[in-house]
């Protein structure tokens, strides 16, 4: 029998705050996390703006907790604290339950100094690397799934522990997969989300060589402008965000606070190009259609979309076309509010789907759509209502969050406000 799935805990760690309330308040106030930035000690790197976590504020916010973390990658530190915050918010710290963990993670951090340890006069040698292992950066010794393992250990999770890597759709896949497992009755409670940072010199260099981040300095900290004519690339960012998902019965039994209900999840592949989305958003449209079918609702039931909205030349018009295709019946796309949270927080890459899912959930709960910042001159190819510049109160019956990744990997999640008397039943 299908279980209804609800969200009972939220945790966010990013430049806009270390508690979901601060994060949400900043989004609604139109604040931006984008600041002048250069990687490491490099003063003339072409990418000059990013949305980094404020390290001092992070350490202060989690004083007493962050010190106990084992050495781990930067992104994993953010993720571990975000997961803790979500579990704390859900009232599940030190509770004995069969918990599952699902994490979206991205490119592993590599330390060039570690690579250097492999070199000898005769060329690279594994034995030299091994002999010098004590010099390895201990924070980078863990595997790509280190965060999933740390969270599982921290909360003694006995259920499935999964580490997703679908690029920028990773966290959305983690949340979607968790939703499916709970709905199927395989488990009652999952903590799901993601953490990422692409701000190390080597990683940002790789992304820059692909031409992905914006290098337009003329717009200053307003260069993250999804759907705007002057957009020129994404803004690299970092952070961690997690949600606690439970079956409704499990949440009710323990009188948990419920933020909203997950209705559906869809995923798809573009099968078009490794480096570019399908120009008409074919895979994106299919992902949204799959989520709608999964939720058992009609396109007309959606009032708000939290777009992938990367501020790249290719994504934004393709996503617009996809939305127009999916919501064509009755010209419903004209009635939709669509906004891009990346305009405020930048691109959290593999983790991006998690803070955006939280924004979507809170938008539905509170009846207010967060804005798309810096949208001053919409691209003619981007002709939807993108909630420019200011948040907008509105009735939201159901909302959809999109996440699309490199390689053409797409994920869409649908949520609605939780209504106690709701008799909605899944069609699965």
């Amino acid at each position, binding site marked *: 029998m299908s279980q209804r799935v609800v969200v009972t805990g939220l945790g966010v760690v990013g430049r806009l705050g270390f508690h979901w309330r601060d994060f949400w308040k900043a989004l609604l106030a139109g604040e931006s996390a984008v600041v002048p930035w250069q990687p*490491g000690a*490099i003063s003339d*790197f*072409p990418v000059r703006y990013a949305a980094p976590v404020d390290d001092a504020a992070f350490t202060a916010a989690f004083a007493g907790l962050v010190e106990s973390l084992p050495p781990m990658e930067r992104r994993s530190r953010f993720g571990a604290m975000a997961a803790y915050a979500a579990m704390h918010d859900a009232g599940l710290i030190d509770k004995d339950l069969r918990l599952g963990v699902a994490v979206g*993670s*991205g*490119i*592993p951090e590599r330390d*060039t100094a570690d690579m*250097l340890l*492999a*070199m000898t006069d005769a060329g*690279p*040698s*594994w*034995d030299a*690397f*091994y002999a010098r*292992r004590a010099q*390895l950066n201990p924070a*980078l010794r863990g*595997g*790509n*799934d280190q965060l999933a393992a740390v969270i599982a*250990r921290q909360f003694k*999770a*006995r*259920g*499935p*522990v*999964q*580490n*997703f*890597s*679908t*690029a920028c759709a*990773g966290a959305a*896949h983690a949340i979607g*997969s968790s939703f*499916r*497992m709970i709905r199927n009755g395989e488990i009652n409670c999952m903590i799901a989300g993601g953490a990422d940072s692409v701000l190390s*010199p*080597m990683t940002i*260099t*790789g992304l820059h*060589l*692909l031409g992905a981040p914006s290098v337009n300095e003329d717009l200053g900290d307003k260069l993250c402008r999804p759907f705007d004519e002057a957009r020129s690339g994404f803004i690299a960012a970092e952070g961690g965000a997690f949600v606690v998902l439970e079956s409704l019965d499990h949440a009710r039994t323990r009188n948990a606070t419920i933020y909203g209900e997950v209705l559906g999840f869809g*995923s798809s*592949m*573009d*099968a078009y190009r*490794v*480096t570019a989305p399908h120009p008409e958003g074919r895979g994106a449209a299919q992902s949204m259609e*799959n989520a709608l079918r*999964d939720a058992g609702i009609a396109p007309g039931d959606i009032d708000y979309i939290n777009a992938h909205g990367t501020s790249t030349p290719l994504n934004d018009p393709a996503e617009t076309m996809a939305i127009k295709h999916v919501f064509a019946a009755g010209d419903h796309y004209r009635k939709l509010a669509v906004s891009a949270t990346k305009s405020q927080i930048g691109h959290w890459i593999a983790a991006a789907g998690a803070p955006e899912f939280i924004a979507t959930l809170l938008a539905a709960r509170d009846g207010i759509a967060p804005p798309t910042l810096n949208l001053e001159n919409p691209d003619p190819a981007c002709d939807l209502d993108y909630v420019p510049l200011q948040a907008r109160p509105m009735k939201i019956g159901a909302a959809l969050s999109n996440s699309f*990744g*490199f*390689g*053409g*990997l797409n994920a869409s999640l649908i949520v609605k406000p939780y209504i106690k008397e709701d008799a909605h039943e899944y069609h699965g």
Partner: protein
Amino acid sequence: MNTMDNCTSVVITGAGCLLPGCDSPAELWQRALEQRCATVPYADDMVRSELITRFGHINTQQSAAALDAVPFKLRRYATAASQWGIKATKDALVSANLELASVDAERVGVFTAQADYCYPAVQSFMTGIRQQYEQGELDIPGLTHEFLNARGMDSFLSIKGLSNNMLAIASLAFGSRGDCGAYVQNASATLAALRSAMISLKRGDSDVALVIFTGSYNEALTLAELFQAQQLTSAGASNEFRPFDQARDGGIAGEGAIAFVLETAARARARSAPVLATIDGISNTTRFERDPSAYRRCTDRLLQSIGLDLDSVDAIVARGLGSKDDDEQEIQQLEHLLVDGQAIPVTCASPITGLVPACPVDLLLALQMLQHQQIPAIANLTRPASTRVPWVYRQPHTKAIARVLSLGRCYSGFHSAVSLSLPSFIG
């Protein structure tokens, strides 16, 4: 309820592999029967070692065949591991007698499991690292400029480093636009990919699911961690991979890829597909402390979910990591599982190929056991470390096999159980 007769049960209709010494499941089977290990002296174009002496390598000919299997325009984006995965998947489709063109592209799901660090290894940064080494000191800004200005770094490194490389390349190579998932871990990634594929098929989100597993331990950081933890055998030791043997002293790492084609039993029946096995169910648990009951917990949960008990299992494929401690724990778990004296023969695939990360070699062997109604002996096992487990050693064991339990565990405390059975109909 026996899910074999459930029309939404999931069956394996095709299998392919590119494993050390094995270009096909049939070759794996032959090696297993003959107890012929495929591990060879460690060799790497870029990295030398006298400590890591043996490895389960994909050889040059296999790599060339894998590269040929990848569409030309995708080759520069695909890691070696992804190339192996494409080759294995193509072979699995042939084995399934399935032309993907006959399936709606939006109904073909792809679910992948990859091992850690499939690309950003020492080799990837070689140009810059050599320069840095010759300079005698590390200069990150200088190195970054070298990469930026001289393009000394593969400009597709980020794409290759994104651990969804296998999924992205597979979706493009096969034109698949359906449901998807990509997992990066070791044994738990294999189970997650299988689980997602089964859910997708059972819910009707996909008609066909390609499940692709690929990975390599040939990466300095990963090898160092395993070696340091005494999980790999080394020069001066026996230099043989002897899981469950009293003389075991560590495993041998390896690399490779496996692919399965999954469909619902109803669809397989409708197209008269060659059904290799039914996946009865899967289960897993994570134990952070030593827990002799871990296998028992997984198995009980799995068998209860399909209304069966341990008596319905005819053979077990165990993991066999080969280190003193890991095998001791696994032996305790097997003894606990078989505590009521069930004489279920136990075998193991790992010494044949070496430990291949994120690849369920044990599941592939289980599939072959169902097809051939035989249980191969565990290679290199001469003096079992426990007399309470009915190991198959020295000689293969022939018996009627309707159901095989494949048990998995990895270094992180993850434990799993997958049950495969003969299909209840012949396609």
